[in-house]
């Protein structure tokens, strides 16, 4: 940077620093005799790392990397993610107070730092011993291949890393060292009491911090922002400083080969909260964004449903007591309370309300719709009655369009970054060559495709579908009235619909079969499936998750009746 002479070999001015403090040319890798006067040791602008690592870093002349630990890598990832969240408008406390504290607590609990005898010490000692007495310790040392298969079966680490398929030769892979100090041993640590840090876990950390702060961001929002690239996750290692070399098993730890899955992040967050021994989280009250009443309002808007429905969702929420802070607030480690997925809960409430009013049995909703259509034709006064058919048409149309866009986007996703990873120094040239070829081919066919390189990211928004009253085409249903389907009884508005069908008669136990309910599209009315599909698109989760939640809510709602039933009609119990 402060060395501006031209390179003797390629006459470029593009200098990098080697570990010995010498300048090298980034274009042709020519190393000069010139050294930098001041060796900059705090290459990571984050001072916290220094509290973890003890003393001055040893710089290895050989591979130009610096000593670093896996947890430092994760710390960097978390820092990047927190910064991105801050840029999205999350309160600034989050990074330096909340997330930082969680992280410190994690390091302490997992005995990596802030304790008398950090686990890292033993690891380091082990790894040193390994490399010095190579012959004797060989049989005791598990092969890398074994480690790979181990972590694969665990399923929480990325299983399909590029090197996994290439490590066919055991002899070769065992000799490959990881770039980090403890990388090769990291995957081996499998003690039950510590929760191993993984890439998906970084998102669990973020979500936990957001939840603590009661930020208006649901988990589905967070994951969507990750996929859309607003929060660093995939290829986050490219933000690591040059001296933090990733190789060997580090790739398995930091390389991301799949998108985070809602349930996985959620469950890990719960596990993490319990592991960290956190106290009860701040109360989720009805003024919080995550409260079902609030979220229902949001999702009703997004689903283009009449505002009047909100009244009904609130009534359902109240009736089954899921709006209470005790129900909604996370108490880590408390196994008796249900772990609330706020967004899924809210959409499930909406689905239940729709079932209460429209039945969604592929028959009754169309009947009501015809009735409303008739009424709208004859009576132009006042707001229009809500027509299910019209709503279905409008939503189906834009949902299909958006779904198609999303599918194409998924197919077109670029997973690789400019900075390729290589498993070992041996592979470096091959990997770089491949990378270059890929770039060339991409350019060649990119030109033929006629489209300019993918447009820059759209601004993040918590709404994916938006409807506005200002549109004159009548595609917005927010102001439509439910009058046609309600009737007054004893001064109260009730639904005309006297019936209801349950999605399931009996809930399964989550422990034995993994689900509370089972969803097969063909077994259910198409209208019901359509509604599930709509919300599953909005939350980017499987329809069956929403179905599970719907079943749970129904059972709470009809609890009394369900319990009574056997008395009157015991024959049904079969």
């Amino acid at each position, binding site marked *: 940077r402060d060395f501006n002479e031209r390179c003797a070999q390629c006459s470029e001015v593009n200098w990098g620093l080697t570990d010995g403090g010498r300048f090298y040319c980034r274009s042709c890798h020519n190393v000069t005799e010139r050294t930098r006067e001041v060796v900059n040791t705090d290459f990571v602008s984050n001072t916290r790392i220094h509290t973890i690592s003890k003393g001055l870093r040893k710089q290895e002349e050989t591979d130009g990397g610096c000593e670093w630990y896996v947890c430092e890598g994760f710390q960097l990832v978390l820092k990047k993610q927190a910064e991105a969240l801050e840029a999205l408008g999350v309160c600034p406390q989050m990074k330096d107070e909340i997330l930082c504290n969680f992280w410190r607590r994690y390091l302490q609990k997992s005995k990596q730092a802030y304790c008398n005898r950090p686990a890292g010490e033993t690891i380091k000692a082990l790894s040193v011993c390994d490399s010095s007495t190579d012959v004797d310790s060989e049989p005791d040392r598990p092969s890398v291949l074994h480690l790979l298969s181990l972590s694969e079966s665990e399923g929480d680490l990325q299983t399909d890393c590029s090197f996994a398929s290439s490590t066919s030769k055991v002899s070769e892979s065992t000799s490959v060292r990881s770039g980090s100090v403890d990388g090769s041993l990291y995957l081996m640590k499998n003690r039950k009491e510590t929760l191993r840090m993984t890439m998906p876990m970084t998102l669990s950390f973020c979500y936990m911090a957001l939840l603590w702060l009661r930020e208006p961001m649901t988990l589905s929002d967070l994951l969507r922002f990750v996929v859309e690239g607003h929060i660093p996750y995939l290829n986050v290692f490219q933000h690591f400083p040059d001296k933090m070399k990733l190789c060997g098993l580090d790739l398995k730890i930091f390389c991301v080969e799949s998108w985070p899955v809602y349930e996985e992040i959620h469950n890990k967050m719960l596990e993490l909260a319990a592991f960290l021994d956190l106290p009860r989280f701040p109360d989720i009250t009805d003024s919080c964004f995550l409260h079902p009443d609030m979220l229902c309002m949001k999702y009703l808007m997004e689903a283009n449903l009449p505002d009047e429905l909100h009244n009904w969702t609130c009534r359902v929420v109240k009736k089954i007591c899921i709006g209470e802070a005790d129900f909604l607030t996370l108490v880590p480690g408390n196994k008796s309370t249900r772990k609330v997925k706020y967004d899924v809960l809210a959409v499930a409430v909406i689905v239940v309300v729709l079932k209460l009013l429209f039945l969604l049995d592929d028959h009754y909703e169309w009947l009501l719709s015809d009735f409303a259509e008739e009424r709208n034709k004859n009576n132009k006064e006042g707001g229009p009655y809500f027509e299910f058919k019209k709503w279905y048409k409008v939503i189906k149309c834009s949902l299909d369009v958006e779904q198609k866009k999303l599918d194409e986007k998924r197919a077109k996703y670029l997973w690789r970054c400019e900075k390729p990873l290589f498993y070992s120094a041996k592979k470096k040239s091959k990997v770089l060559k491949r990378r270059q070829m890929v770039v060339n081919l991409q350019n060649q066919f990119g030109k*033929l495709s006629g489209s300019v390189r993918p447009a820059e990211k759209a601004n993040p928004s918590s709404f994916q579908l938006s409807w506005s009253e200002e549109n004159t085409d009548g595609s917005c249903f927010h102001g439509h009235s439910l009058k046609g389907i309600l009737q007054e009884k004893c001064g109260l508005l009730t639904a005309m619909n006297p019936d209801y069908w349950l999605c399931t008669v009996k809930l399964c136990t989550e422990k034995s079969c993994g689900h509370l309910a089972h969803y097969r599209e063909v077994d259910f009315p198409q209208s019901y499936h359509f509604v599930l599909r709509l919300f599953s698109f909005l939350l980017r989760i499987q329809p069956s998750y929403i179905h599970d939640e719907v079943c749970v809510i129904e059972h709470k709602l009809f609890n009394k009746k369900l319990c009574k039933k056997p008395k009157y009609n015991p024959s049904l119990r079969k």
Partner: protein
Amino acid sequence: MDSFLEERGAATAKSPAAQAGSALLPALHLPFLPPHLFQPASSHEHKLNFKKSKEVCLSYIQDSMLQKQWKRAAEFLTFYIESLEKDFSTEYMGPSEMIWRIGTEILCRHSHSSMKEFNSFIEQMKTLGVKRYLKVCLEHAFHLLCNGLIDEAYQNLSLAESWRFGEQTAVQDKEMKLIQAYRGLLDYYRWSKQKNILLEHGQDGFEDLSVEQEMHNCFRKAAVNLKEIIKIPGVWDLFVKCYVDLLEFYGDHNEARQVLNEYAYNSKFPANPNAHVYLYQFMKRHGESKKSLISALKILHDIVPSHELMIDFNTMLQKSKKRKKRRLGLEVIFAALDYAGWKENVKAWSCLARQVKQIVNSEKHLDWIKQEWNSRKDWWPAFHFSRYLAKRNWQENESLSYEKALVAGILLGKDCKYFKYVSHQGCKAQVKRFRILKKFVNKHNPVYLRISGLSDSSVQP
């Protein structure tokens, strides 16, 4: 009746069960269950990962290609290419093979691609896989040839030929032979070009030693490689033809005959009608005996009864003095006309008409016709002799309708639709031969009765 059937059905259904009940039951062996049967389908199945994303991308490419949307295909390919970075597999259809195939197709079809671009793409593909190198080279050469770039193709093949990488596998060995053979083919092409120059100049009484030398040089190079490939069992029509041409030019007829015989008769080679065609043509060129010509065509007749050489075959057989051969001739021409491709071929019909007429006139061997006709009388009338065809043939081709009418008249009698229509039209148009035809058929109408088996006196010598 119905109830009876039901009863019977019930009885048969019951009886095995009853038997099984009385007999000792064998122990029931339950099949194995998958080890993770009770694990619920986890969310991981729906997880979008690198592999799945690329698979979806590939299916988009295939869709667009099927719909000839080359731009769109190129667009998705841009995103699919990334999967190369994961392709360390040795699977046959890895991403690199896909990218090579798809990319080639797109570059060939896309309106905005150029030869230069194509070449640079292929050069990259060559470096992608050692195992595929020769295949890519060969297809590249084909593509260059299709675009008339013969010298470039030649260069390419020579380069591929000199390529060495570790131990060659059996497959690579074969591919290398192919590469050499195609280079030999191009050498042949050069040779024939030189030959033409020389022949032209030869007429002018001008001789150019260097051209002649060059020509012989090409001959040597071509001959060596072509000779190699045709030793391997396979279909090498192109190579064989060129090689034989070379040999014939230099007067090495024995070698040429041997090559062709080997190609046609070696049982290790797949059955190949062209092999017999080449042999026949060679023998004809060199004026070999009728007998050997007939034997070559006989095999061809067995493999491809509809081959165009069947006319020659029939003509040759008709002229024969031996009864057996003439009998075969009739068989051959009838068989050829079974195929739709011959339907409107005047030559074929006149062959048949001539032979039928000859047989009827001589009143000998009517049973031959009868035998051939037996298997065809169900479908030939509709296939060849419909009124519609009569009309069309008459309008489009008078001679054809004449020949066909004769055959129809003999085989189906004077009342058949085809004959009636054509002879009527012919007489109306005052064409002499049709009047003679009418007379002929009327005279020989009893033949029809005998052929179709309507007459008692059908047994004839």
